């Protein structure tokens, strides 16, 4: 099986890897680049645990071919904290106990980051619908939604200050 050589930007850094034509971006992140923070819960785009931001758009990395990443910009959970400082969303998830097993957490955080970048002041309903593609079986979503909205409030405050 022939492999393709792919160059892309992941979390701001240039990367290169070889990929089988049928391999997904999620496979490449996890198996070729060792970035196992993005999880595979279903492989069919139904759980969101593999969420990444591709050229500014939130996508399921299990539904992107690795070959499609050629020349493109990928942001994953591993790039969310900057220089060891947690993103406000990451901090708020811990503060609000918005994770239990933590498996869906990376995907939820990436999706929530995309939300707050698109809509800095989402309502509860907007937050719930935006995150509807991220399944969480532990929390019942209550504390997740609170954490995202609280992080949004903190980010808005920071912008004003």
């Amino acid at each position, binding site marked *: 099986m022939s492999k393709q050589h792919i160059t892309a930007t992941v979390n701001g850094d240039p990367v290169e890897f070889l990929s089988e034509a*049928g391999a997904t971006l999620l496979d490449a992140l996890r198996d070729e680049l060792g970035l196992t923070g993005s999880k595979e819960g279903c492989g069919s*785009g139904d759980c969101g645990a593999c969420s990444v931001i591709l050229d500014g758009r939130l996508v399921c990395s299990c539904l992107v071919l690795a070959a*499609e990443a050629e020349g493109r910009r990928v942001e994953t959970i591993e790039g969310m904290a900057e220089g060891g400082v947690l993103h406000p969303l990451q901090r708020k998830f811990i503060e609000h106990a918005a994770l239990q097993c933590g498996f869906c957490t990376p995907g939820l955080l990436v*999706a929530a980051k995309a939300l707050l970048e698109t809509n800095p002041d989402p309502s509860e309903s907007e937050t719930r619908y935006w995150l*509807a593609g991220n399944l969480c079986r532990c929390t019942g979503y209550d504390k997740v939604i609170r954490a995202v909205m609280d992080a949004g409030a903190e980010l808005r405050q920071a912008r004003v200050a």
Partner: protein
Amino acid sequence: MSQLDFLAPTSAEEAARALAASGAEGRPLSGGTDLLVQLRSGRLKPGLIVDLKKIPGAIGIREEGGGFVIGAATPGAMLGEHPSLGRVWPGVVEAASLIGSTQIQGRASMAGNLCNASPAADSVPALIAARATCVIVGPSGRRTAPANEIAIGPGRTSLQPGEFVLEIHLPPRGRRAADAYLRSIPRTEMDIAVVGAGVSLALDADGVITEARVALGAVGPTVIVAEDAAAGLVGTRADDAAMASLDAAVRAVCRPITDKRGTADFRTKIAGVLARRVAGIAYARAKEQK
């Protein structure tokens, strides 16, 4: 192990040549939200995947002659972000925006939704109600076909080997005209439509319906255009009596199956309910489109 190749050509003609050369082995890729699931499950074992996204115009929306041209690989999210598309064709945009999650919206295209040929595809009843047309590229050049001629059965299309949809065209809209789409699902998100209904209406200055088109999803092997139901709306103001006959006329044309997502009886009843509700929304919108 079969060989799988990947190409990302930069012209439509190149893509068509590659697909034609691969015969039944080739598959065009837009958003990939259906294709990758089929690859993964083993339902589909193509020898070649041709990514359309590097073809100029494949991603994007342009206004042309009062209507809109939507590139085949334009993700759903871009439709909602467009400054005027949602004003002119709100039903098409709301239908496309119902496909999957935010993540899916970042990738999934209406052309893919159309060519996947699922009877339950959300954007298709809306496109058909809107009289959308498709520009199809193939090894022997380009042709145009109405959206309702693409799917010919569950998972089957009228596209010939090597052909793919490059653009979807939405016609210009007059004043006092609007469309709407609703679907019925058990959850609030993430489900496949158990029934979908798209309605497009035009009114005269007195609010009387002059043109109507009703398209129903998931109640037949392909989207059903309910001609009699639409004809019954013309000449009315979408009053209660008109809605009741719409409900009955829609139920009369449904030919659904019973499957894991719903029973035939339920689907038929809900089709009538949705048609009424969608017609009401389209009517209210049309009255406001001055």
